[in-house]
């Protein structure tokens, strides 16, 4: 049963967004029940589709006044259940807000609405010889607003950084319903860096309504090297040697035999047959630098025992090779009725040990694991394959999946490199952080959202109650008393 408090807002929401943009039909509501991670589902009481920042502010104000939880949703491609609706709450779908407001090529900035897709920003920048650097694999469809919520990475963040390094300003609606800016687009922060703290907060601190992103001059030269190996260890040696040579490639990706086989079957990417590991190394930058790096990378790949090396210099060839990598998740999905994608991170030098451990875990449990990973930064994407018709196999897969995260934590890594904690991994947070760490993080939550209405139940396993802060107050500062300054 939809919650009465939320459905009672239908009239007010209709007044704000117009009837066509308020969804109450149970069947239609169900289309919003999950994001890219389909194992977590909840049907929202109400879905609204605002068209402007002011409408978002009015919606959030209505929710705040009535104690109704709300969840923002971009393109719904997230892989941690971060946009799973609240059953007693309002889902705010940002898909109508997709204007590119401005491109300023001299300042290297673009101002966009949150529903704009990641790739659309790069397309808008391309005529000026620029691009938007963060490129999650879902960039054709994922929204920039969602990228801000998740601090999205992508294959090229090894060199170019994450969303947080490229977002220079945000207009947000606070959980109290107020419109405010965090950052002014310059990259120079006045006061606390709330812009940095907000980015990656997974929709729990407010809703983004405008984004100022930094654009990057498009690289003069891009080269992609594909090297095949007869073991993951040999490929791993090449990665270490490349990093050891002082080269920071734009991307270093690796796939194991199972994922190569799957990608080959799905998109016929023409990867070397029978390889146990395929390494992709992309170099970008000024032509004069990239040529020299390319020669070094080829030499190092060969020295590590590559059975075959290919280079792709033109965009079409590169796209063909990348197609294999980017299709890997979906391709592996064809090998199995169901699969879990993990997103753990380990120090890069521990990759070999951790992959061996995953392989052992896989053998012990009889559950297959395909490995696709960002080798340059140690971000693993093990795909745990199982048959969801079997309860026993489902449980075994979940257990294996948890054991992989335990391994990542044991090696000093993280439970998530780019997919976010969301609903899915909040139970693992206490394994990575102490109770004090988590409580301290939630002080930020309490500052932004003391009522706990903004995307509740995500990131933290146990919400912190934000009571009245016990403060010791002294006599006011003279400047405050004189009305010259504000104390906070």
């Amino acid at each position, binding site marked *: 049963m939809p919650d009465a408090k939320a459905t009672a807002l239908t009239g007010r929401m209709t007044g704000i967004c117009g009837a066509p943009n308020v969804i109450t039909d149970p069947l239609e509501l169900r289309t919003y029940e999950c994001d890219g991670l389909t194992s977590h589902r909840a049907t929202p009481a109400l879905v609204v589709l605002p068209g402007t920042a002011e409408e978002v502010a009015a919606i959030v104000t209505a929710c705040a006044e009535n104690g109704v939880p709300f969840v923002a949703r971009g393109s719904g491609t997230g892989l941690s259940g971060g946009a799973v609706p609240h059953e007693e709450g309002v889902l705010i779908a940002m898909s109508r807000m997709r204007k590119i407001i401005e491109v300023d090529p001299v300042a290297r900035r673009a101002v966009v609405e949150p529903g704009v897709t990641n790739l659309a920003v790069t397309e808008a920048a391309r005529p000026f010889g620029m691009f938007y650097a963060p490129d999650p694999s879902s960039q054709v469809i994922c929204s920039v607003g969602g990228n801000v919520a998740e601090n999205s990475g992508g294959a090229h963040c090894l060199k170019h950084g994450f969303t947080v390094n490229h977002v220079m300003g945000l207009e947000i609606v606070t959980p109290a319903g107020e419109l405010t800016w965090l950052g002014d687009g310059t990259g120079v922060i006045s006061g606390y860096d709330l812009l940095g703290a907000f980015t990656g907060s997974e929709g729990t601190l407010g809703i983004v309504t405008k984004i100022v992103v930094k654009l990057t001059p498009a690289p003069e030269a891009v080269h992609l090297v594909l090297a095949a190996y007869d073991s993951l260890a040999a490929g791993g040696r090449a990665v270490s040697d490349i990093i050891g040579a002082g080269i920071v490639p734009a991307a270093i990706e690796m796939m194991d035999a199972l994922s190569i086989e799957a990608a080959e079957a799905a998109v016929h990417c023409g990867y070397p047959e029978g390889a146990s590991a395929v390494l992709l190394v992309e170099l970008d930058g*000024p032509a004069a630098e990239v040529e020299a790096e390319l020669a070094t990378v080829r030499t190092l790949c060969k020295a590590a025992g590559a059975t075959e090396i290919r280079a792709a210099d033109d965009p079409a060839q590169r796209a063909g090779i990348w197609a294999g990598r980017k299709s890997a998740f979906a391709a592996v999905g064809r090998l199995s009725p169901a699969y879990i994608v993990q997103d753990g991170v380990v120090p890069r030098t521990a990759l070999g040990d951790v992959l061996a451990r995953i392989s052992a875990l896989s053998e012990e449990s009889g559950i297959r694991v395909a490995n696709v990973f960002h080798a340059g930064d140690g971000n693993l994407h093990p795909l745990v394959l199982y048959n969801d018709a079997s309860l026993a196999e489902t449980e075994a897969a979940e257990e294996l999946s948890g054991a992989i995260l335990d391994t990542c934590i044991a090696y000093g890594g993280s439970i998530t*490199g780019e997919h976010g*904690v969301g609903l899915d991994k909040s139970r693992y947070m206490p394994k990575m952080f102490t109770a004090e760490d988590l409580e301290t993080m939630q002080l930020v939550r309490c500052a932004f959202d003391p009522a706990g209405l903004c995307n509740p139940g995500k990131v933290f396993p146990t919400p912190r109650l934000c009571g009245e802060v016990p403060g010791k107050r002294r006599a006011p500062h003279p400047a405050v008393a004189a009305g010259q300054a504000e104390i906070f």
Partner: protein
Amino acid sequence: MTADSAVVTKALAAACSVLRDGSAGDAVGGVVPSFVASPGDTSEAAALLRAAAEHDLAVLPRGSGSRLGWGIPPERCDLVVDMLRMDAVLEHAAGDLVARVQAGARVVTILGVLAAAGQEIALDVPGTATIGGVVASGLCGPRRLRYGSPRDLLIGITIVRADGTVAKSGGKVVKNVAGYDLGKLFAGSAGTLGLITEATFRLHPLPAARAFVSTTLPVGGPAADVATTVAAAANSPLVASAVELSRHAPGGPVSIGVLLEGSADGVAARAERMAGLLGESAEVGDQAPSWWPVALEADDGVLIRVSFWLSALGEVLDAIDAAARNAGIAPMVYGSAGAGVLYVSCREEPATAGFVSALRAALSSPRGGVAVLAAPASVRSALADDGGMAGSVPALSLMRAVKDQFDPGHRMAPGRFPEGI
């Protein structure tokens, strides 16, 4: 010594083995602290802050102390937490391009350790500064254009809250989105939220070669020419690490310099092409031009930071000139123009505050700001009714709420932050 202060002394001494009375040399903006304590590790720092909380002491963290004279003096300061004993490089995982350091370690010490493996933290800040101080003050050098500010290189942090609770966020892997990023919040927080005790950074390989390409634009040229040249350099796919500008006085010649880093052959080829972008008089060298800023200093007493979108650079230079002309002063202008930051250095004189106000009025766009980083008391009080030191800061009520959560007693560096936080 009163009975009370004896009790406090005893409590602090029990928490921290290195404790002494504050002296005139420890004064910040005229406020002499009662105590100076030097914790040796995070747990000692935590015990110290717990004791300070029990006795309601106002606490000021201190690294090398080089920037304590900047900004607004604390309203009160009972205890200075001197971080210089926490000076260890705890971990350098060269293969992972990551280093974990104690907050009191000096930059020069850390860079020495990292250089042995051909790596660095890509910040050009004074070697004598402590890394905790660099993070807390958000100090940047010219290479911010390419590498960003300390918050962009920080991947993990350990802090002690005002009540002595130890907390960490991030970790020692570069790619990590688990939990809120407290490092971002503490970077630039000037000690007002808590004490930074450890920090973990992503590293970069030391460039094999570097080149400086510089030129001087003639006296009296239009600001638009300067802006065009800076933008051409900063937005070029030749990938500048820094694009700096320097001008001694309004109307004088403007020096523009570009730093390129990379392989020896690559840098040479790029420098030649960059020289083409800067014009006929451009010179290439492997040493920084004489005017290249070594470190940001408030040499003349007043240091102002103007931030802007690069497309407004011409307008910013014109506004500085107009305000200087009206005030009858001749300030020096320099900084990371390509990254949208300029510093204006002026002397303490009656017209200085008026100059700042005029500049703020002329540059009222929400896409930038005019902040006074350092100024003597006369200028500070003259600006008190006119935007204060920070100028307009968006989201002040959220910042107030964050401060209340982390430091409900308002004891951490009280009053140091914009608008009296």
